[in-house]
């Protein structure tokens, strides 16, 4: 029974982690670009011409159906907006970068941050950001965009029927558990890249779904108190699932364009290593879980606890900036010894609580340079103690995500102990 419990925990964790690390699919990525495009156009017109702004909002609301094509059409109809149109075109071109998005987070960061800071590749977007960066509307728009796109990726996405004809496969794969699109020979290098990436995305998502199903199945079994035969059933279930999605043996991939293929190979290599990394993290988590002391044979609340932790998106950060903020780009989904000091827990989109992680290494690290590591974001309720063994967070701090930084809005109250 204990083994089963561990298995269930492992599977839940595995599934959850895979889902977190899953690559965003192409349709969603393009929708994200369209959404960014729409929001930026609204912002641009708002500060330029109220009448045109109103007409645009009416003709082209920033919803799930908006496309860059429609945006540009609408702008064209409004007339005398050549600069705005070229900005919209530059944003629309971001869709071509889909193949480089290694994860959802990377994609979100790319469309909401990176491109606005990249003067070399995206001159128009960069100029726009520079022009508006001080305005409150712009700041708010950027914060909202991150939230919007995150929820778009997180599942508030259109149902399969909403997907565009001809682009259905990648979007529908997870829902239908159908075979992946054949990796056919294509003369279009971009198509090849997309196919490979989509395949990887599919694999990741599929494993996540399968493992989730297994976890659910096993949980049910435990709840029904029928421990016998679980492993066999699980085994059969996995086997059946793998068979159902395995590509035919004779399916081969024969690229014809060497340079394109070289590029794709590089990407595949990179993604392979990324997958290794995920696998490594998972094995680490499973190992930790197995080492987790268990006093009772069945301990469902433990499952709940871990599941809750994952759902609330815990992540870790190191030294804060002297202004009391943390760099979001430094956030790590897992604890990193020697680097992590603070544990953040997301309470809503763009808001999180934080505290000094209880681990010994976090405390040691924090105490090394307290003026840098503690003071900017914590208030101590007792005297600083360089030899403290523990730093207990009495009241967690609060932070808000603004422009790529978790800005401290309330310091954590801590206590040095031991």
């Amino acid at each position, binding site marked *: 029974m204990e083994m089963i419990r561990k298995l269930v925990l492992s599977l839940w964790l595995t599934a959850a982690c895979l889902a977190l690390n899953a690559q965003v699919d192409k349709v969603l990525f393009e929708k994200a670009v369209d959404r960014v495009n729409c929001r930026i156009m609204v912002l641009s017109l708002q500060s330029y011409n109220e009448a045109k702004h109103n007409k645009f909002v009416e003709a082209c609301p920033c919803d799930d159906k908006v496309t860059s094509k429609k945006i540009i059409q609408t702008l064209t109809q409004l007339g005398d907006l050549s600069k705005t149109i070229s900005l919209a075109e530059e944003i629309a071109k971001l869709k071509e970068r889909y193949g480089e998005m290694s994860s959802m987070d990377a994609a979100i960061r790319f469309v909401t941050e990176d491109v606005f800071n990249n003067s070399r590749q995206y001159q128009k977007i960069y100029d726009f950001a520079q022009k508006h960066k001080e305005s409150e509307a712009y700041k708010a728009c950027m914060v909202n965009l991150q939230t919007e796109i995150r929820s778009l990726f997180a599942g508030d996405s259109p149902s399969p029927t909403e997907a565009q004809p001809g682009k259905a496969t990648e979007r529908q794969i997870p829902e239908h558990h159908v075979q992946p699109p054949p990796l056919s020979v294509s003369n279009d290098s971009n198509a090849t890249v997309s196919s490979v990436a989509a395949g990887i995305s599919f694999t990741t998502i599929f494993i996540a779904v399968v493992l989730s199903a297994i976890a659910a199945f096993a949980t049910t079994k435990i709840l029904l108190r029928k421990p016998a035969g679980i492993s066999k059933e699980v085994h059969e279930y996995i086997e059946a699932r793998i068979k159902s999605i395995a590509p035919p043996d004779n399916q081969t991939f024969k690229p014809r364009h060497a340079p394109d293929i070289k590029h794709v190979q590089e990407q595949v290599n*990179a993604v392979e290593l990324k997958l290794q990394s995920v696998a490594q993290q998972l094995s680490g988590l499973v190992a930790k879980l197995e080492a987790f002391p268990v006093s009772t044979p069945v301990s469902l609340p433990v499952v709940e606890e871990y599941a809750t932790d994952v759902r609330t998106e815990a992540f870790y950060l190191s030294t804060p900036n002297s202004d009391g903020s943390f760099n979001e780009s*430094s956030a790590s989904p897992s604890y990193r010894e020697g680097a992590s000091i603070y544990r953040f827990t997301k309470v809503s989109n763009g808001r999180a609580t934080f505290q000094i992680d209880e681990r010994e290494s976090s405390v040691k690290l924090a105490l090394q340079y307290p003026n*840098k590591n503690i003071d900017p974001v914590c208030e101590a309720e007792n005297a600083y103690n360089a030899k403290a063994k523990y730093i207990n967070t009495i009241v967690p701090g609060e932070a808000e995500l603004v422009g790529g930084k978790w800005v401290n809005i309330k310091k954590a109250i801590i206590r040095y102990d031991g």
Partner: protein
Amino acid sequence: MGLNNSNMNKVFGYSKKSGKDWFATDAYSDKEIESIADPEGGSEMSLPTAIPSPFARIDLVKTAFRNIADTPNLKAYNKGETVVAGKEDEKLVSDALDVAELLFNIDSIRDKVKIIVWDRSVEMEKLRKGSVMHRRLGETLALYLQQDKQSYNFDLLQRLYLIEYNHKIIGCTSPVTMFFATASDLSHARIKLTRNNMTFGEQGVPLYERDAAFQEYLYRLFGSNDLLKKRLTIFNEYLEKNLKILDEVNHELYRRIKGLQATRPLKEDYDELNTGTIGSNIEVLGVTLYKRKKASIINSITGSDFVIRATKPRSGLAPLVLQNGLNKPFRYANDLWDNNTAVPYEDAEPNLEKRWLPGIHIQYPYLTVSDFLEPYLIRLVYPVNNEKFFDGNLVVESGNSDKGYLLPLKKMFFEYFTAQDLLSALPDKPRIEMVQGAAGSVRVTLRLPVARTGEYIYFQRTYYQSPENQLAKPDPRQNKGVIAEHQFGVTVFPFIKISDPEIKPYYRVQVVDRDITGLFKTSSYELDFYADNAKDPVAIRAKKTRSKKNTQALEPGSQYYVLDDEFDFIHVKNVAGSGASGVIIPMWQPVQQGNEVFSFSVDFGTTNTHIEYKTGNGSPRPFDITPEDMQIATLFHPDKTSEDFSGSGANAIRELITHEFVPLQIGNNAPFRFPHRTVIAESFTLNIETETFSLADFNIPFMYERFAERDKILSNLKWAKKEKGNEKRVRAYFEKIIMLLRNKVLLNRGSLSQTRLVWFYPSSMKPARKSSLENTWTELFNRYFSPVNKPVGITESLPPFYYYKGSARLQGGAYKPVVSIDIGGGTTDVVVFKANKPLLLSSFKFAANSIFGDGFTEFGAASSNGIIQKYLPYFQNLLETNNFHDLKEVLRLIREKNRTEDINAFFFSLENNLAIKDRTLFSYNSILARDEDLKIIFLYFYTAIIYHIAGVMKHKGVEMPKHIVFSGTGSKILAIITTDEKLLAKLSRFIFEEVYGMAYDSDGLTIETERHMPKEVTCKGGLMVQPEDLAIDVQEIRANITFGKSTSFERLTYDMLDDGVLADIEAYVAAFNEFFLQLNEQFSFSDHFGISGTSWSIFKTEFNKHLRDYLEEGLEFNRKMDEQSSDEKIVEETLFFYPLTGIINNLSSHLSKLTPVNF
């Protein structure tokens, strides 16, 4: 006989005769044979293998040559339906030529080829003498040789040479066609020699498409040997036909061949082809064959377009630089480059000379990707400081730009190019570019100039990110590199390269190893430094570990390299970890000496040290390091590096620079400045008996009193008892200062040799101690500056007067006596000037530490010191309340040493700490000024000094002074007594008048102080006069008078200090105390200085207690400190202040308890 029926003719005959029915025929001639149509139409490639003759293959090849020679282009050819030469002919001829060409190039494959000799006479004899079967074979063979001697030149056949390649026979010499290949599968022998096509390939290659040198050789061979022309007629026909074709397809070669001189000996251009044994030459029909001269191959390759265009001179063959997939018409060895040639990304043979060129199998050095690019790319947790170090032209196409990389260049690259080449944007120079792409991968491209004008070869390798907590294995053969992220910092001091052999460089390079967790926590770093003009690394004078890495405590380690040579790049290797290596190239800015004359003055004080400098005749200013003349260069970008070091938390890389090395900036707008506390830092584990270096084993910790210290901090350097290592510490302290000064000069176009240095010493310092300091300054100054002018040591009591005089602060001039009082931490120096010249000098150890120190306690006594007891809780609370946790930690660490002066110095430093905004709140001076209980001590202290000076002046017959000027950190005490200088002057005047017993004239007495920079006055004054003018022998004017009640002593030795003398001194002190009491009556302390009544009452109770004890304690303490053993030795200072020090110490503990500090 034959059928003469046309139909039968069609069926059975190939006579091409049109006879009917039976008609006469004879044997088929060649013509008839040619006319037989090939049922496969000439395309059959399966060669016959079972012709019943021992020499069938010879015949087959001979026929093939004959057929091919009849074709227009020496290839398979059909004339209508008639096959003139089939594919098999083409193949047989081509294979025979392959054997010939292979032997011509035998030196390229010598290791794989073996020649087996079949000697006719020897072998036939053997057969004859062998078994029956062998005999029969011999007889049969002899029969054939005899029977076919006309057709196959067997009459001239002496030897056949069988050629074995890779242990398999591939061919043999032939008496009719020179060579023939075996019918076996020869695909194992497919090698490229010096041409584009491969030996024994699928397609036959006619001679005219082969290597020109090989063709020339054959024509030379035949041209020089008529026998070959006569006997190898078919082969000769082939050659003639080939020449005709060359006339059209390669006229240049044609002309060359036509112009060949038959008389020129072959030996001049070729080497004899032997069986592997010198003298055993391979021949055909007795004619020796030849091979390509090895030197000619090499010569030919040295003209290749791929030859590296190195910028460094190098002996030996210049290697080729080969790039996979190059699609340009480069000349390779003899022919054009074939873009299908597979160049290995890594050649297992490390010795370039032993490498074989890919594709053509010639032993010649060449370079490929792995020779220049490392398997690992070291990623840093910060962006590289690209203003000081080369960042490899990093382009971030994807991901964040918060991380940088070392250059993944192997040392071998620098055997051909200089570091400077990489920084140059000029053509014909190598260039590196790193592009950060998807999923953290980095594509590194190294452009290398080659012989072909304007062209480059590009080595490219993509490095992939390793899974977290893992290090993937690179695959150099597949050209897959791996990124290894390491946490370390490198800082170079000074960031100056002079390149002037006359100026010796001195470097310290700090390495902070912050790999404290994960895979690399047990690893360390090794740095080698290279100059562009030398192959071997520059000598490392010392490598010192300052902080030992402690992974348990998550504490980083630090190492320091001491170098006395300039370098152009640094090779970094991670040892026992990833094994990854990389290169750092400093972008040195040209620095040259100029003519600007710098003058520095260094006041090495008990508590604080100050440095001033001036250029030319400019005004003195405190020493600074500004953004324009920063002396260190950090590998991390100081502005672009995030505070969390891209989430790694490796901020120790930044912090350890401040703690152990040199700050980026010093001065008014920087966190650190002079005057700075006179302390030195070293590792707790330093073995002082080993060879030590400043800025490797020691440093001046500018973070002292500002941040919690990590090291062992030692203070009281100036007066510390002569204990083990103290001289080394003082020397290290001076050396760091000298290094800072030197860099200041170099970075501001100053002249090292013209630089002037003034240093100060207290006049009470013993000559031996002064001499020791002087030697140290002189030696260091000479070493680092090679100066024209020697450093000048002057007593620190003289310059303040010149400062006040130079800044026109002495109203009415200085003709009348001016008393300059320099109150330091340990000593007070007094000089009486008259008519601008020093007249009288006195020095005594009664200074700030007499109040703020431990009295006569050799070891720290802070825990029982009254002032500390009173103010320690106050400041602890203040720091806590204001969240200055780090400063509180600083205080805790200082407190641990229990030295009263250190704790008080910390309190005084707080108001100047940049972290503290409310300076008034933390001003110890202001707090003490408001302390009505303790103020009596400061007034007593001041009065005693003025009283003693007045006594000495009177004793020496000097008239009363017109001005008193104050300097030194200790003179801040004046502001505690009162900020009203006129009041102080009034008090002083009163004391003088009382001592002299006469009244002042109308000029009166004025007091001048530099309240905000009393310490700086000495240094400034030292630069406001010609220092040599002040280098006087102070002993001549020294007045070291100890007053007794009944007598005074101008010269006291220890053996004179009997009970009577001591009692007389004690009585004098009691008289002074009485004077102080009287002073209050005439000059109300309460009214003028706010002294509390209670404190005055306690003073009156305590002030005359234990006077003799304090006097004895003082004597004992100072004898010990001076290591005074001889009783005949002179007592170097007045004994008047010994009892007073004890009184003050005693009083402070009583007075501190009176009124608690109001928090």
